[in-house]
Structure formats: C-alpha cells, structure tokens
C-alpha cells in the first residue's frame, strides 16, 4: 500500500544533529512536542486501547473505577465525617472531589515515572516523538478521570451541593492541570528511565503527600494553627486542588490559591522544559 499523498507530503527532510548548544536542543524539543500534537489520533487510540486492555473481559469495564471510587467515597466519607465531627452533607461532596482529583495525581505520578521504560519496545523500533509516551499517560488518565466524575455528580445531586458562580474558573484550572500533568510525566519519565529507583521513591512521596495535604481533612480544621502555613498555604497540591474544588463546592474564587498554583506550575513547566531539552536525545539509550 502506498502512503496517501497527504501523509507523504507532510514528510519533510529530517535532520538529526548532535546538539551542542541550547538553541538546537530547544528547537528539537519543540519539534518533538509539535510532532506529538500532529500524531494526536495515535495518542488517543493508544490511550483508549490501554484502558480497554486493562479491562478486557471484565463486566463493567472502566466503570469498575467509578464503582471503586464510589465505594471508597461512601465508606470513608461516613467514617471520617464522624471522626472529624463534620456534617456528612458538607463533608461527602468535599471528599468526593478531593479523592477523584487525588486519584488522578497519584496515577499520573506513578504511571508517568514509567512512561518511557514501559514503551521501550516502541522507542527502540522506530523514530517517534518521545513526548508522545508522556502524552499517552496523560490522555489515558484524563479518560479515567472522566469516568470518576460520575461519582462527584451523584454525590452533589444527593446532597444538593450548588457550585458557586465562579465555577467557570474550573475551565482554566483544567487546562492548568493538563499542562502540569504533561510536565510531571516528562520529568518523572526521564528520571525514571535514567534512575530505576525513581518510581518507588515517587510512590512513597506521593503517599506521604496524600496524608499531609487537605484531602481527607478540611483545611478549616487547621485554621489558626502554625502548621496550616506549611501544609495548606505553601502546599502545591493544596493550591492545585483548591482551584478546582473551591468553586465547585460553592466557595468564592480564591486568588491566593491561584497565585500559588500558577507559580508552582510555571516552575514545573520550566523544569520539564529544561530536563526534556537536556535528556531527550539520550532517552533511547536509557530505556
């Protein structure tokens, strides 16, 4: 079979040069990401096949995720509402958003740190943009997240939680999350390919962050205590969660959370750019 004209016309001569300066490195890194963008249908299909593969032969398919999240929210919700002396109607919507979003952070970090090592056979068989493997992890987990949103909707409907007017700010927040997820996958994927100790280290750090961040507990509980400055105000996870969670729970827009989220995200993206420019050409040797 011959390639379609369009496919063939899009193939300009490829020049691969050993980069010795940062301008070359930046240009090839940008070309890599642009190529991933162009191959969007492949990224999407790979992500969907990954999910289908995980649930091949199962009755509920990806809705098992939804079910397990629902069970977790339901069981933990009632227990912790008691433990923390919280009102179930206020606590459960809070917990459902928190857990669903944290699931996403958790899987992005654990699967992201394996994104290159797990695509080893593809990387070594043909030339393809390397950022594609990170994008695959991100897209796959966004689709998983979309299944879990059902839980939030149901909990909100049961307790008649009404999102505030500022909920429109969730849209830019989602965009920020996608960008951050991509940056995290690239950084952790590269370190995970070079140092095989990284994935377990990342898993344990994320585990600790889960307990230290206001996910199960409401930040209000810590108010007026010194600890809240470290665990809440300067916590990047809290800021990122709050820009999504706050408006949906009916709270007003919180400029300080946005400021912290943006500063951390900018740092993350800069770091991802630096690491990717530096290591992109070596990934094929490491996996």
């Amino acid at each position, binding site marked *: 079979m011959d*390639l*379609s004209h369009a*496919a063939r016309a899009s193939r300009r001569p*490829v020049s691969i*040069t*050993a980069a010795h300066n940062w301008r070359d490195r930046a240009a090839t890194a940008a070309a890599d990401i642009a190529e991933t963008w162009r191959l969007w249908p*492949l990224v999407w299909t790979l992500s969907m096949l990954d999910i289908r593969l995980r649930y091949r032969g199962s009755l509920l398919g990806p809705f098992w995720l939804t079910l397990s999240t629902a069970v977790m929210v339901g069981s933990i919700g009632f227990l912790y509402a008691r433990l923390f002396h919280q009102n179930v109607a206020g606590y459960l919507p809070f917990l459902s958003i928190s857990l669903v979003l944290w699931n996403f952070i958790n899987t992005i970090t654990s699967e992201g740190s394996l994104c290159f090592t797990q695509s080893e056979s593809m990387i070594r*068989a043909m030339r393809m943009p390397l950022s594609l493997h990170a994008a695959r992890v991100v897209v796959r987990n966004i689709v998983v997240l979309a299944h879990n949103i059902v839980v939030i909707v149901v909990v909100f409907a049961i307790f008649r939680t009404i999102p505030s007017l500022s909920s429109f700010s969730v849209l830019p927040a989602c965009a920020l999350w996608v960008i951050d997820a991509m940056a995290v996958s690239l950084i952790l994927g590269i370190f995970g390919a070079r*140092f*095989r100790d990284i994935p377990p280290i990342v898993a344990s750090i994320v585990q600790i962050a889960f307990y230290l961040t206001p996910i199960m507990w409401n930040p209000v509980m810590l108010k007026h205590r010194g600890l809240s400055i470290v665990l809440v105000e300067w916590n990047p996870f809290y800021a990122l969660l709050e820009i999504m969670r706050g408006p949906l729970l009916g709270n007003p827009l919180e400029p300080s959370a946005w400021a912290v989220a943006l500063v951390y995200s900018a740092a993350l993206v800069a770091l991802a750019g630096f690491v990717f420019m530096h290591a992109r050409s070596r990934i094929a040797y490491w996996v």
Partner: protein
Amino acid sequence: MANLIIDNVSVSFPLYHGESRSLKKTMFAAASGRLGEDRKHRLVVEALRNVSFSLHTGDRLGFIGSNGAGKTTLLRTMAGIYEPVGGNITIDGAITALLDPGQGMNFDMTGRENIRLRGLFNGVNDAQIKQLQADVAAFAGLDQFLELPVRTYSSGMVVRLGFALATAIKPQILLMDEWILAGDASFLDKARHRLETMVRGAEILVLSSHSAEIILQWCNRVIWMDGGQIKADGTPEEVLAAYLPPEQFAQAMAAAGVSA
C-alpha cells in the same frame, strides 16, 4: 527523490554498572563534588566513530562485518532512533526500519489493533487502515489470529506479522537487519518475493547481512564495518573479495550467479 546522508556520525553508549546507575551513588557523588569527575570518567562504548557516507535514489547498500562491529547500531542511528553524540544525519524520504521481529508491537494488544496503531503512526485514514489490515492479514496468513493478543502467537507468527506490517506501507528508504531471513521455508519464499518487489520499489535499500550471497544479489554497494568505523566502501565484489577468505568468496560468487 530520496536521500540519506550520514555526516561524521559518532555514537557512544554509556555503560551503567549496577552501582553507577543508582540514584544513591549519583547523589553521594554530587554531594561530595565528584559528579564532574564521574561524568568525565564515565565509561562509554564507542559504537560508531566518525562514520560518513551518503545514499541517493537507486542505491542498494549492504553492511558486512563481524558481530559487534556496529552494523545494527548504525541501522538504528540511520533510522533516527539513536541520536548521535557527534555529527549529523539527514533523512529525506519516508523511512521504514525492519530491525527486530517485534517491530515495536504491543504484545498485549491484538494483531488488528497493532496494525491500526501502525497505520495511525504513518498518518493514514480509516479506510486505508482497513485496507492495511486486510493486506497484512492476507500476507501473514493469520486470519482469525488477528483478533487475539500478539502475546499468544508463536514466535514464527510474530515474525510474520511484524514483517507483513513493516512491508505493507511502502517506504522510500528501507533499512533491514538480517533477522528477516529467519523463518519457515514456505514463509521465507513468500517473504523473499515480497521483499524483492519492495526493494525494487524502495528508492534506497540498506541491508545488514552475514550472507555474502544475499549481499551480492541485492546490493550495488557494500560498506565493511569494523570496530565502529568504516573499513572499506565500494562495490560488492571489491569489498567482499577483501572481507572473505578466497574460497568462500568464490563460492558466494558462484552461488549468486555473478561472474568474477
């Protein structure tokens, strides 16, 4: 028009020993200010050293050389998989590399899904993907197996699928490693026929093989790799005459039906 230009290319592999690969060791080295030294003294294998040549439409290049001479690394570098530490590669034309039987397939996915992914990678539309699936299924003779995960295939079936998949989309530049020439006899005949039409269609062929007979039949230029460098570059007869012991060379010439 297709061109493939390799200009002064060097490739080296870092050797990560059990310890030097670990984060702990690197961190301690960095903390004690020895990271720079570590980087300078890092052990590397120089797989390719200052390799230069250029190929244009009509070229049929063969690589010969002993195991570990850098033939496969050079093919991977030409395919753009390994990026060189020095030098420059220009690839002008659609390139396909037949480097290992797995062909980057996902072994948990079905044959059909793997074909679809390859089609998407090559930027073809849905109708063409259907055509591609039919073409690969017919050639590989896998029929109902196409609905099963590749993991359940026998190794011969994996080779057949990988080969059919890689040859279904006609490239302008074709890079092949010698694994293709392993397989059961009936498939080998079919494969050889398909490769021959493909080689006629491909504008540039690069082949790595230990078989002098195949090199003589298919190539019009041969590069002898030794220790990551080009030892000789010329017509198949010239280079093979220098590479092979005289009696083997005469045998190969006779087998290939070329008069010396």
